[in-house]
């Protein structure tokens, strides 16, 4: 059986503390007792996976923790991750009726975390979800081991199908393992959840195997072979590498893609930030806020986010920016990075910026900003090139096209979900799309 990788100690992530620590049973019951137990509750409507939130909170209040976990996991197999990483402030918690009454909304994420973590630790995931059905002899290939594929594989396994996940990286879990800010979830926490999903049934994880569009070389599998050897294929391709600015001096040490840097903070013990006193993060999205916040928590004295528009235009969540600012991250608005400056030894010394209006640089004196590290968080390329291997699968603007009700692509044996379809959303969206895809696959596979 496949062994999940053991992450070495000495990773920077391990220095960052949980900012919403797990509730004790007493804390959970006290918070659960505050819940009004609404009917047609707005929190449920705000949850992409439609978890019956008032119901699971009520169960926590009576110490029926396993029942609470069942209610959560029934709708969201990765309910443990989602409890930690969901932007609840703009989803369930943001919809809580207490907001309308000027009272502190219920801490739904923390209650969900309490229920899932407690119940899974005591009896394992398998005992908290529907019993696994007898083997069907059918098998499904899942490309990419991000949350969409992991959730889909788990659900397929419970139906008695064989699920085989192909992942090109050594560490599975996609951004849920490698891209979540450490103060929300550690890589080991994400891997622990995958361990439980793999144990649900006949799930195989082929890590270090890349699915390619053309002929397969060593450590590769061709898309064509998947179509031939499997009864169905799920594409959970995620996104591609970090985008670059294309400014002079960008290539070389000291300038990182934000996603790449976060991944290294989480899993690479070789990454050190020695000598980095000042860091600049370019961008205004959630990845930008995350990496800025992480750098600050790792002890970088000055962390500036440089954004080409104003704060109100940022796609990053306001509550995340507030947290980051509380820890000292500063925001430089209406600036475009025009070049990176390096010393004679090639070492990064800073960057120059132009003032911007409507996101575009305008004439004027360039401004200099000294720094030893830059993280570019200006988006990710798409990673859907492999879709070509599946005839009929449409790709538009880099995203796989699906029927949103079924997640079915233009190929009758191929479904898709997660960031490669939605362009980059939350783990909870990936899980919901996986759920819809599996529901439709079951019909096609002749399940119930």
């Amino acid at each position, binding site marked *: 059986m496949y062994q999940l990788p053991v992450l070495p100690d000495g990773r920077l992530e391990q220095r960052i503390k949980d900012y919403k620590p797990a509730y004790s049973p007493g804390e959970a*019951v*006290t918070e659960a*007792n*505050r819940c*009004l*137990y*609404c*009917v*047609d*509750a*707005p929190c449920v409507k705000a949850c992409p996976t439609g978890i019956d939130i008032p119901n699971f909170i009520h169960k926590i*209040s009576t110490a029926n923790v396993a029942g609470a976990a069942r209610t959560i996991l029934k709708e969201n197999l990765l309910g443990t991750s989602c409890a930690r990483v969901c932007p609840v402030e703009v989803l369930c918690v*943001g*919809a809580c*009726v*207490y*907001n*309308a*009454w000027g009272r502190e909304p219920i801490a739904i994420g923390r209650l969900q975390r309490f229920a899932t973590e407690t119940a899974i630790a005591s009896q394992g995931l398998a005992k908290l979800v529907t019993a696994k059905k007898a083997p069907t002899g059918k098998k499904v290939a899942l490309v990419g081991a991000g949350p969409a594929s992991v959730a889909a594989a788990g659900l397929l396994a419970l139906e008695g199908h064989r699920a085989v996940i192909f992942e090109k990286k050594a560490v599975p879990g996609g951004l849920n393992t490698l891209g979540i800010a450490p103060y929300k979830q550690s890589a080991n926490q994400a891997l622990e959840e995958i361990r439980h999903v793999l144990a649900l049934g006949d799930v195989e994880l082929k890590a270090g195997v890349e699915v390619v569009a053309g002929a397969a070389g060593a450590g590769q599998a061709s898309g064509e072979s998947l179509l031939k050897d499997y009864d169905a294929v799920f594409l959970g391709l995620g996104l591609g590498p970090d985008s670059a600015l294309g400014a002079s001096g960008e290539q070389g040490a000291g300038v990182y893609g934000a996603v790449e840097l976060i991944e290294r903070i989480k899993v690479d013990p070789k990454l050190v930030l020695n000598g980095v006193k000042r860091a600049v993060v370019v961008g205004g999205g959630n990845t930008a806020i995350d990496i800025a916040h992480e750098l600050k928590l790792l002890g970088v004295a000055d962390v500036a986010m440089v954004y080409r528009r104003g704060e109100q235009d940022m796609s990053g969540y306001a509550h995340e920016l507030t947290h980051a600012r509380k820890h000292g991250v500063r925001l430089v608005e209406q600036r475009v990075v025009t070049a990176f400056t390096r010393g004679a030894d090639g070492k990064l010394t800073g960057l120059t910026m132009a003032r911007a209006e409507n996101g575009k640089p305008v004439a004027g004196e360039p401004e200099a900003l000294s720094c030893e590290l830059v993280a570019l968080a200006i988006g990710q390329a798409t990673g859907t090139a492999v879709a070509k291997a599946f005839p009929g699968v449409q790709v538009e603007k880099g995203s796989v096209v699906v029927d949103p009700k079924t997640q079915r692509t233009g190929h009758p044996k191929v479904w898709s979900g997660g960031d490669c379809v939605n362009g980059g959303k939350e783990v909870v969206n990936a899980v919901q799309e996986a759920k819809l895809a599996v529901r439709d696959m079951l019909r096609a596979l002749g399940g119930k």
Partner: protein
Amino acid sequence: MADLSIDFCGIKSPNPFWLASAPPTNSGPQVMRAFDAGWGGAVWKTLGDPITNVTSRFWAHDYGSTRMMGLNNIELITDRPLEVNLKEMYEVKKRYPKHTVIASLMVESRENWREIIKKAEDTGCDGLELNFGCPHGMCERGMGSAVGQEPKVLEEITRWVLEDAKTPVIVKLTPNTGDILEPGEAAAKAGAPALSLINTIKSLLGVDLDRFVPNPRVGGKSTNGGYCGPAVKPIALHMLAQLTRNPATKHLAISGIGGISNWRDAAEFIALGATSVQVCTAVMHYGYRIVEDMIEGLSDYLDSKGMKSVNELRGRAVPAYAEWGELDLNYNLKARINAETCIGCNLCHVACMDGAHQCILIPGRTHEEHVKAGHTHIPSSIPEVPVKAAGAIGRFVPVVDDAECVGCNLCHLVCPVPGTIAMTEVPGAIGKSETWNDRVAQGRDLNPGSLQSTLAKRGLAK
């Protein structure tokens, strides 16, 4: 400022707030601290033959995050030497001559009663309370509620006491009886000038589901205890009002006991005819300090009602405590939901659907969805008024279907936002006041559709 002082069958007290005979009145230092905090009187922890107590003794009934809604105890009467208690009572009375000190007594034989009455009264106490109420331990030895449950025995012992006592005698009643009037009238017949009630209710507070032993647990066993605290207040109010409207007992001074935690509770007991009130659980929970709010709150309340003294409040609600047959069948209420303050939780809807008359609809649903939800009458117009509160986009204020609403109050009671669901009086269906007793008197006491009326229609009823 209203006058809070009372005259309780001759016992003068600076205010109606007394501590009940219980752990808060266990010792002299405690009672003196209580008097310093503002309590007007204290009924000393019951004196009697020495006993031995067990560990543990209390357990509580919580509801949600509300601690100690109800409290249960298996503690017996005082376990301190009688002479120590008597000495401390004497000292307290000497240092606080204007405060009320009542000796609570529980012994068995006539001789014992005679002896303990003498000793108690020698301390200078203001009165005696006969503990005929304790429902655990002592009753197994033929005392406490064993007496309160036998009106004849209660009457006889009360007579003994009245023969010997020089100070006013208060008979403390147990609620563990079918009809509180029986022991109440027995005490009146014996000539007692006063009652106090209720003592605790016989109870098992809960079960330890790992050990399979009820709580509170004494090793591997438990026993039934006495239940008190906020949860028992409605039972106490009912028994109090039974006695204060009853011709044979309404002349008695009554000290009301049972879940009194604040001035509002106290005012309700007084409005139903209590002269003083006794408090225990709330003090065991929060301490003597709660009396400050009780004094201030009651005083301000009396002022706001234009009452010059607490005596003006006493019994004000007794006449309105009627029999069911005297209630007006024409009186009619409808629920009205305030769209300005509704937060859209829909708790009124679910309570009405499953616990009442299916008359609160959630707008925005299709006719079929209303039917599926369980509505049998669907109004032609269900206005979609948005919940105003920010963030409640797409939520509508629930709609009350007047045709089905029976004005039961349930939605008003479950609504979490105070003042959002009002019960509004509307014209009644009969058109004039009419009670069931009126109908009985007129021979119209048949409900349409009842077996009796069906038989009558067919000429088969006599």
